[in-house]
């Protein structure tokens, strides 16, 4: 699904942020990306959603060379990707419900489907009483859950999450990770960038480490078994909604 081949990223006149990056993300895989703050995890994710383009090397996304994807091709590619931003990037004047509904509206979903599935997902992430709340009235953790709900509502093929548990307590963090696992089981490829080593240790998934601009694999698949618990039906509902829309 994603292939980095000798990829380098640098801004003009600056040292390389990432250099000689070589790894592949297989379809339907689940991977963590760890590293200290400022190591380049966010830049790595930005390359994957075409927020940045490689300065050198070849990056392949969904079988397409990133260098040849034109402006017109980017929206369609991004609709296959759900992104959880470190700073949430919610739209300030839209309610929690409308923020989560955005990807569906952009994809042209029916309002009836939006009214059915968005509240269900918001309830699942623990925001049942905050449908109409504006982002600035929500706590950091609540905003993060809105951002996660927005990223997964369209059941993307690829989920990129940048520190998705940075503002929630451990219990909620684990619960959110189970949501990502649920999506993964339904075929979504998941990449989570986090500096929370304890969380990474708790789940048995491959792990990449970013350090000094280089990416290394620190744990391969199946190194330890995790014991995921059932986590409700919201992600399933999102998936069903996508399937009913023909997505």
């Amino acid at each position: 699904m994603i292939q980095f081949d000798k990829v380098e990223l640098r801004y003009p006149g600056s040292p390389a942020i990432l250099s000689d990056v070589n790894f592949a993300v297989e379809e339907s895989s689940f991977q963590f990306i760890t590293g200290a703050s400022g190591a380049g995890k966010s830049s790595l994710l930005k390359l994957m959603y075409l927020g940045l383009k490689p300065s050198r090397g070849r990056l392949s996304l969904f079988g397409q060379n990133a260098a040849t994807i034109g402006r017109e091709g980017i929206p369609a590619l991004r609709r296959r990707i759900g992104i959880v931003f470190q700073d949430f990037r919610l739209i300030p004047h839209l309610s929690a419900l409308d923020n989560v509904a955005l990807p569906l509206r952009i994809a042209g979903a029916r309002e009836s489907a939006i009214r059915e599935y968005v509240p269900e997902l918001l309830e699942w992430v623990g925001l049942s009483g905050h449908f109409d709340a504006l982002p600035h009235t929500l706590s950091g953790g609540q905003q993060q859950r809105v951002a996660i709900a927005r990223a997964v509502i369209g059941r993307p093929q690829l989920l990129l999450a940048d520190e998705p548990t940075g503002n929630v307590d451990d219990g909620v963090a684990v619960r959110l990770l189970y949501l990502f696992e649920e999506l993964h089981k339904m075929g979504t490829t998941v990449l989570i960038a986090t500096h929370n080593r304890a969380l990474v240790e708790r789940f048995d998934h491959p792990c990449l480490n970013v350090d000094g601009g280089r990416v290394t694999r620190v744990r391969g698949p199946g190194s330890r078994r995790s014991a995921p618990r059932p986590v409700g039906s919201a992600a399933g509902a999102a998936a069903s909604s996508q399937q009913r829309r023909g997505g």
Partner: protein
Amino acid sequence: MTRGDIPLSHDPSARYLPWLLGIMCYFAVLASVGAVISHQLAARWDFALGSVVTVQIPAAVTEGSDAPRLSQAERMMRQLPGILRLVRVDTSRSAELLAPWLGAELAADLPLPRLFDLHFAAPPEVDLEQFESRLGELFPGAMVEAHTQWMSHVAKLTRAVEALGLTVLALVMGASVVAVIFAVRTSVSIHREVISILHLIGARDGYIASEFQAHVLKMALRGGLVGGFLAVATLAGVAAALEPEAVDSANLIPTLLGGLPAGIVEWVLIASAPMLVAFVAWIAARLSVLGALRKMNP
């Protein structure tokens, strides 16, 4: 996109653009009316005067001394192809018209020429010079006037007014486009962050542009309808302020405000001025947003 993903209604442009477009629309309607009036007057006068010929026969030395020749001249006039009617202007009426300048007594004593108005269904195609020379055989000094020279001056004037109206309309459209472009570019700059989020979620430029378009169209229609209404009210006020006779003789305002003499096509054109301004603003908004978005990273 009807829910307002981008909060455009809070922009500074949302406060001034409807007013600006309303004023533009006001001038657009007045300019359209001016152009339509000029066009109609030109056509009307062209028909009314272009299809009337005046024949002037010198006064008789003594009353009735040339009656047989005059009857023959009238027969010649009635036999002209395409003539609808022949109206002999009463000599006393001619004297009345001259009285304000010459005085009633002198005007009554003057030997006034006999005047005939020849009304044709359309501008006559007969050779009027030849007709004049034939009349001259009966009455030396007889004159045939077709008003065409005077008409050409009037036609030039009305066409100039019509062109001026259309020029003002074009300038109004141009100013509207500039105002919309400026407002839209400012809005794009203000909402750069929200636009960036929409892009990251997978929104196409067209999706984002459609929100700006809907916003501008709403403002343009709101301003346009108010401006259009005020323009019609202004015309109604002008019509009411004019004396009825003056209005009737000038045949200007009632042509439009009376509605009936003006064609439905002209009325539709006038009523469409606010729609035209709104449509132009809508197109300008789309092109302007798409241009601004192309300069942003998707």
